């Protein structure tokens, strides 16, 4: 492994994990304001979206600055996006719904914005479990087809965020613009398929 690849990998691990562990530590010790549950949900949710955006920015960025080693980190960033999304869903079930499984499924089905979020999450689960190199080799061409679903996942994630806010839509709109740009950069790919 090249040295800059390694440095970047260590950095990605360090930042993603530190922030995640820190937020749970602060939440457990009641240091995140009046409603630690809400804080954790927002943190992990937007964290997942940020990481997903970052993972989709890798390819265009690599082409632009011509640093192929960046590509070596794309999968890792994607996997952290999945980890944050997993924490988001589990925190919702454990701390918001407080382990009431019936209510958990009821909310997923009845609230359109949660339904969308769940679909995005299921896509991320599929991408994560097929992320091993071995699986990738086995799947051949189907792997790429499956992993193109990430574009749908990020779109649904963005809408999920937009629908979840009560009044001020500035932040989700900014996310929407960034997501649109990232998808627009791949318009040739979409047109050819």
């Amino acid at each position, binding site marked *: 492994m090249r040295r800059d690849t390694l440095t970047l990998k260590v950095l990605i691990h360090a*930042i993603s994990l530190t922030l995640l562990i820190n937020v749970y530590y602060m939440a457990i010790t009641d240091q995140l304001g009046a409603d630690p549950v809400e804080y954790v949900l927002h*943190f*992990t949710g937007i964290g997942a979206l940020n990481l997903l955006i970052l993972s989709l920015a890798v390819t265009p960025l690599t082409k632009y600055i011509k640093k192929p080693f960046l590509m070596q980190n794309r999968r890792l960033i994607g996997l952290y996006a999945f980890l944050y999304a997993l924490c988001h869903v589990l925190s919702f079930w454990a*701390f918001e719904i*407080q382990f009431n499984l019936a209510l958990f499924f009821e909310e997923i089905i009845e609230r359109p914005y949660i339904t969308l979020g769940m679909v995005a999450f299921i896509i991320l689960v599929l991408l994560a479990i097929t992320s091993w190199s071995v699986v990738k080799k086995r799947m051949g061409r189907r792997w790429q087809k499956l992993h193109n679903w990430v574009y749908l996942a990020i779109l649904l994630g963005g809408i999920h965020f937009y629908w979840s806010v009560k009044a001020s839509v500035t932040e989700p709109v900014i996310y929407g613009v960034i997501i649109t740009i990232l998808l627009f950069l791949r318009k040739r790919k979409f047109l050819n398929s």
Partner: protein
Amino acid sequence: MKKSISSAVNLPEHSVTDENVYLARRTMLKQLGFVGATGLLATPSHASALDWFSSNKDTAQFKTTPLTFKKGAPLDETLTPEAKVTSHNNFYEFGTSKSDPVENAQQLQVNPWQLRIEGECEKPITLDYDQLLSMFTLQERIYRFRCVEAWSMVIPWIGFPLADLLKKVQPTSKAKFVAFQTLYDPKQMPGQASRRMGGGIDYPYVEGLRIDEAVNDLTLLSVGLYGKTLPPQNGAPIRLVVPWKYGFKSIKSIVSIRLVEKMPPTTWNILAPNEYGFYANVNPNVDHPRWSQASERRLTTGGLFARNRIETLPFNGYGEQVAELYRNMNLTKHF
């Protein structure tokens, strides 16, 4: 379900974090850049990415003063710690995230203040700041406070019944509703000056009650909480508290109370009529379009693992006193 709550809320006094310690810890974390650093990667709505454009100034805290009041009947539920009551606020005039008001409202000028009570009444009056605090014997009321966002608190308010004030102005027979208005002052309230910061709401914030709701004994005009005058993030110098309705009915920093003949417009109803009705009675059977109202999370002490989800009661548990007001109404339609 009840069992799990009581174990979480029946904490001994010594396990409650002292307010000063709590605030000092927040300040220290901020200085260490912890809160800011977490915002780098993920931006929870508390610490929004956009906050980076507004300076996080550490200005002097608003000074509250102790009040003299008649002690209220205790409620068999643990009070929400004062630090949480005063740091978790929806007051979009100062920003849309829960921590914005405590940061941006400390400079609000509440003295001098003018509260006009006018409209369909014989004797309209204008109260100044001192009169707000001295015109009536102040009493403490410990109420459950249920937000439409499905969290709740237990708060020791201090104030006087709105009915007492309305009696003074002698409403005419035309007075069917009461319309309230929050201070409009974009210079002091940055959310009113910027649509982005104010959540796209058309200010001033307005609310309303039917006259029989307004004169119900539970309906309080509050001038304080936890033994002291209100801090601005909680609606200083005077706010409404209607404990059987969702929190957004409890309009803050009131400058005008108007007795009117027709149902007045209300801010959240204008913004999203399918989500927020005029009545806004707490009702576990009528879901908000985006979440269930059947249960709520009580904010007390304890962190992430606090088992604080409880069932929501019709009229927030005040049905005995207020259900009669809605006897012939379909509350699914008039939500």
